[in-house]
């Protein structure tokens, strides 16, 4: 068991190596097949490992696999260690399971690429999976950071996959640079953590943290966790660093599903869950996390309401749902946040893949104003998409309902009424914009002029401009199977977390809980000093079971409210975008300023450009380079040279070579010397 963990990231890495070095010479069938098999192998190992993990008693569910000592310098010793615990196990299953389906889907979706490009695509995709698995399995911050930066790299490469397109290359670079801003904070956080704790191992930090009591004022732990959270806002697209994610939709759609919906963007949430013991010590940071998460959820939800690009709507929806997860983390409902992460992976991947099927069928069309009536031609896509939309909207019985409800309930129970209200409003927005998407895409009629406006960047999807609706074909089997499986997942995934109030056992919470409080369940030697203390510190404000049973009626009421909200949202969408579309246009026309602000995403990109990007660029060019460097410093250097040359030239004037001048100067000199002695 102990040396098996390394296989999980290794399989996709081998797939990457094969495709990157031999890809050009392999047929599409082989290179795609290798990539899929690598993921499948990784999934199977992950599943077996998880199964053996579950066999253990719940307080011994930790397995380490140390590959070698990576960096050693003085007391700074960082082993390359992978660690499987319940939290990591869940993530591994999501990454490899959903990841495998998306690989499978890509086999058809990308078939129009040339052999070399096809292999390049799959090599990046496998490399991504490998780094993502390193991220979730890493036992210390530095190994996690390898994955953290590695997935950022793959995101960069895949967003810019169609590199000939300027916008794609720009979007890739933007994603990387914005993420680097977060990484800067993450690095400083690691430095601080190592200085404080003398280790970067998550468990050891949790042990150390257990000895501390929560910070009442803003102290070192608050600073440290805040720095990590800033890192998370980059990776997980939260305010203020979310701006890269909508642009990231320039990448191929399966990439958006895998990286920018199901896995990578949840890394920030996972990181907080991984360090729950540490974050629990910093109530100030926790409040910041909750508020930022809620604000992001609301802001992205409002933007999502008016966007016209099918993938951008989903992108803002992702930002919004990630906000929910951070809200959960911020109010201490760690299990709830991870639960939502897990259900979201199913339905958001499904929605993205569904949108990909639409785009595929329409040869690159992404504007929903040019869609309509597709449910007749694309029945599989339609029905699976509707299931995904129902799940994300929070309709009772589907997975999104359970996880979202858990978050909202915990928020309310924690006394954060304002946050709950905003969360509920966002929930309404979610249902509305999702069904706006459903109705505009699949219902009504497709506009006559729509057929010829196809565009799909560097891909070949745009080749058949003039296809009429009659020629539309639904997803081929390798695309349909992932859609159906994810749809099933979107329905049933929530049943691992049926709350106590509905007579369930919320098994996922019980399963994950030891990962959030590693001290309480492990290291009996330390239990005397730190263990009991840690328990009170970590459980102090939640004490889940007592509340859950006592507040069952509250929970049931809240459930009713959120179900009602979801149905209202769908109803609103059906009025505005199905039955009386002119109403939507009339509303937009009546509030032009609001509409334009939302359509232009609150002009945040423009503000960043004007206040950060351009000033830095202009200062660097005009002040630093041309004035300071070329003008001042080099001016002094060249000036010194000129001074030497100038003074030499002056001195040379005296060297006339004329004997009479020399004689005269000797004479004058003698006069001066004699005169000096006489006068004295």
């Amino acid at each position, binding site marked *: 068991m102990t040396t098996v963990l390394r296989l999980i990231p290794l399989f996709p890495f081998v797939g990457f190596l094969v495709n990157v070095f031999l890809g050009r010479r392999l047929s599409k069938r082989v290179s795609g097949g290798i990539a899929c098999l690598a993921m499948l192998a990784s999934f199977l190992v992950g599943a077996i490992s998880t199964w053996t993990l579950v066999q253990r008693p719940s307080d011994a569910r930790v397995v380490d696999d140390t590959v*070698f*000592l*990576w*960096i*050693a*310098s*003085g*007391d*700074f010793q960082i082993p390359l260690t992978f660690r499987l615990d319940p939290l990591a196990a869940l993530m591994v299953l999501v990454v490899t399971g959903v990841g495998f389906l998306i690989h499978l889907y890509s086999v058809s979706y990308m078939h129009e690429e040339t052999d*070399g490009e096809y292999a390049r695509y799959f090599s990046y995709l496998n490399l991504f999976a490998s780094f993502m698995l390193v991220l979730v399995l890493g036992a210390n911050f*530095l190994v996690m*950071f*390898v994955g*953290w*930066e*590695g997935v950022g*790299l793959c995101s*960069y490469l895949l967003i*810019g996959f169609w*590199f*000939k397109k*300027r916008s794609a*290359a*720009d979007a*890739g*670079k933007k994603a*990387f*640079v914005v993420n*680097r*801003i977060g*990484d*800067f904070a993450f*690095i*400083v956080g690691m*430095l*601080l953590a*190592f*200085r404080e704790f003398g280790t970067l191992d998550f468990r050891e930090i949790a042990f150390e943290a257990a000895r501390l009591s929560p910070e009442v004022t803003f102290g*070192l732990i608050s600073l440290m966790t805040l720095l990590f959270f800033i890192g998370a806002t980059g990776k997980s697209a939260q305010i203020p660093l979310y701006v890269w994610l909508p642009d990231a939709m320039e990448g191929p759609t399966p990439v958006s599903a895998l990286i920018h919906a199901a896995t990578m963007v949840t890394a920030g949430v996972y990181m907080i869950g991984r360090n729950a013991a540490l974050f629990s010590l910093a109530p100030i940071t926790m409040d910041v996390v909750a508020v930022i998460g809620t604000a992001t959820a609301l802001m992205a939800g409002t933007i999502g309401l008016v966007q016209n690009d099918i993938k951008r709507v989903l992108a803002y929806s992702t930002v919004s749902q990630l906000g929910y997860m951070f809200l959960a983390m911020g109010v201490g409902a760690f299990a709830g946040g991870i639960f939502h992460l897990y259900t979201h992976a199913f339905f958001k991947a499904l929605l993205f893949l569904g949108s990909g099927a639409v785009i595929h069928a329409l040869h690159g069309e992404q504007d929903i104003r040019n869609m309509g009536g597709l449910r007749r031609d694309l029945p599989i896509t339609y029905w699976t998409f509707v299931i995904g939309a129902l799940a994300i909207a929070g309709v009772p019985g589907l997975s999104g309902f359970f996880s979202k409800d858990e978050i909202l309930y915990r928020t309310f129970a924690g006394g954060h009424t304002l946050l709950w209200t905003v969360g509920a409003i966002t929930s309404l927005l979610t249902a509305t914009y999702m069904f706006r998407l459903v109705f505009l895409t699949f219902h009504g009629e497709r506009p006559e002029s729509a057929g010829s406006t196809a565009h799909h960047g560097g891909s070949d999807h745009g080749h058949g401009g003039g296809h009429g609706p009659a020629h539309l074909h639904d997803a081929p089997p390798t695309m349909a199977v992932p859609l159906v499986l994810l749809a099933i997942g979107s329905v049933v995934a929530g049943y691992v977390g049926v709350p106590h109030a509905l007579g369930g056992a919320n098994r996922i919470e019980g399963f994950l809980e030891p990962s959030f409080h590693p001290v309480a369940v492990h290291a009996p030697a330390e239990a005397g000093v730190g263990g009991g203390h840690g328990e009170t510190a970590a459980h102090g404000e939640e004490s889940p079971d007592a509340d859950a049973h006592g507040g069952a009626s509250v929970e049931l009421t809240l459930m009713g409210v959120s179900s009602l909200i979801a149905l209202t949202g769908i109803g609103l969408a059906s009025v505005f975008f199905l039955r009386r579309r002119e109403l939507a246009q009339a509303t937009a026309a009546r509030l032009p300023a609001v509409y334009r602000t939302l359509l232009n995403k609150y002009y945040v990109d423009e503000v960043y450009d004007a206040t950060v990007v351009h000033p*830095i*660029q202009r*200062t*660097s*060019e005009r002040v*630093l*380079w041309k004035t*300071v*460097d070329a003008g001042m*410093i*080099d001016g002094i*250097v060249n000036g010194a*040279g000129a001074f030497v040359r100038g003074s030499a030239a002056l001195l040379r004037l005296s060297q006339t070579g004329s004997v009479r001048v020399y004689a005269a100067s000797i004479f004058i000199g003698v006069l001066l010397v004699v005169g000096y002695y006489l006068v004295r």
Partner: protein
Amino acid sequence: MSSLLSLVIFLPLIGAVALLFISNRDGERDGLIRQVALAASVVTFGATLALWRGFDPMGPEFQFVERRPWIPIYGIDYYIGIDGISLLLIVLTGFLTPLALLSSWGSIKKKIKEFSIFMLLLEAAMLGVFAALDLFLFYIFWDAMLIPMYFLIGIWGYDRRIYAAIKFILYTMAGSVLMLIAILGLAFVHSSATGNYTFDLLKLYELKLAPTTQMWFFLAFTLAFAIKVPLFPFHTWLPDAHVEAPTAGSVILAGVLLKMGTYGLVRFSFPLFPEAAMVFAPWLAGLAVIGIIYGALVAMVQPDMKKLVAYSSVSHLGFVVLGICAVNVQGVSGAVYQMLNHGVSTGALFMICGMLSDRRHTRLISEFGGLKSVVPKLTAAFMLITLSSIALPGLNGFVGEFLILLGAYRWDWRFATLAASGVILSAVYMLWMFQRVNYGVVTNPKNEHLPDMSTREWWMLGPTLVMAVVMGVVPNLFLRPMEPAVERMVQRVQAGQTRTVRAEPGAAGTQAFGPADPEARAPRP
């Protein structure tokens, strides 16, 4: 011990002498000359590896020591030996020189014999600098480096080569003259204290100097090194020299020559004058941090590829100086590691610039675009080196940068935090250049039919690609041999500082008898 170390230093010289005997009237034996020069440098590299193999990290401080009296009346010896730090830098020199020679095969068309001789002379001088344990000998090698470099830039450079060559040599000479005076001064001080002259570094380490004397000596030495590094604001010779130098010159200049400055700080300035070092370290670190940010910002707006890489060197070397100033194990190890990294990745970047300029005879970024679809292999190599340069974990740059930041953070968190912002800026300028060169569609018809990597180019770039990965994945291979040397340097500096603290009655107290471990200089929170 045997005279293996001397052999390493003189092997390139033997090669250079051998070249003298090959007559090459109309360039009819250019090929032979190139091969002989390459063979000499490859054999030298093999010999440096033999040094590594014979080196015992747990053994005495300096190994492969050789000592022969040279000018006994002044106590000047031919005295060489290496510790873990100089060992790795010698291996780096041995590694880069053959690659630099290979890189010249495509671009150097005139006076090939002279070019090859200068390259080998340069290599011998560089190896000598890292091996010398006698300050006088060190100075001889130090100045001996300048001459071949001057000619390499001045004869085989680009259009403004004369200006650049003169700027290079005057700038560096200005610094090294002061250093020479300081070296002589040290010998005099030793003579007045003990009655005899010596230039023996290990004896001079034991010299106890008054704090003010230390200041002057420290400044004289450090100015020479700061110019070489180059530390802001002494850096303006570098972009000119790099832009005008031929590719091989740039590779050696960036890969090895710049490290002379930081090596000098580690070997001489800090351990010889520890009290002065303590006073000036924050100032040096301040300049280093300015250099990190300033170099990156200026690199960002450069239209010329080589100039961009040159300014990025200012930024990267700022990290090295910062790590040294921290004077703790992680800081100094990171600094030495970063010297090696920079040699590998910036050397490779200059080779890539050279390959592009061999093909297009321009270095302007705006002349390129869309190369990924024309030369995919070259682009892939370019990508890997770009990632190494922006310190992606798993590649070499990250290990050095992180250790430096860690060491610096333990010393003074403010410097470390400011320096860490370099991770953002390096991504900006490198990725932006990469995008403008490689992504998009080919707009310039001259770029449509460029050839991809040739076999020769694989041989010169390939080793750097491999090293970028190896140094990122198994850094302990390199950290382990250097660590004892780094610890000794740190102890030496801290012992010198503790001594003075003890001497000052006011400051004596907890710190005076405190441990001399890296955390002894731990910062305020």
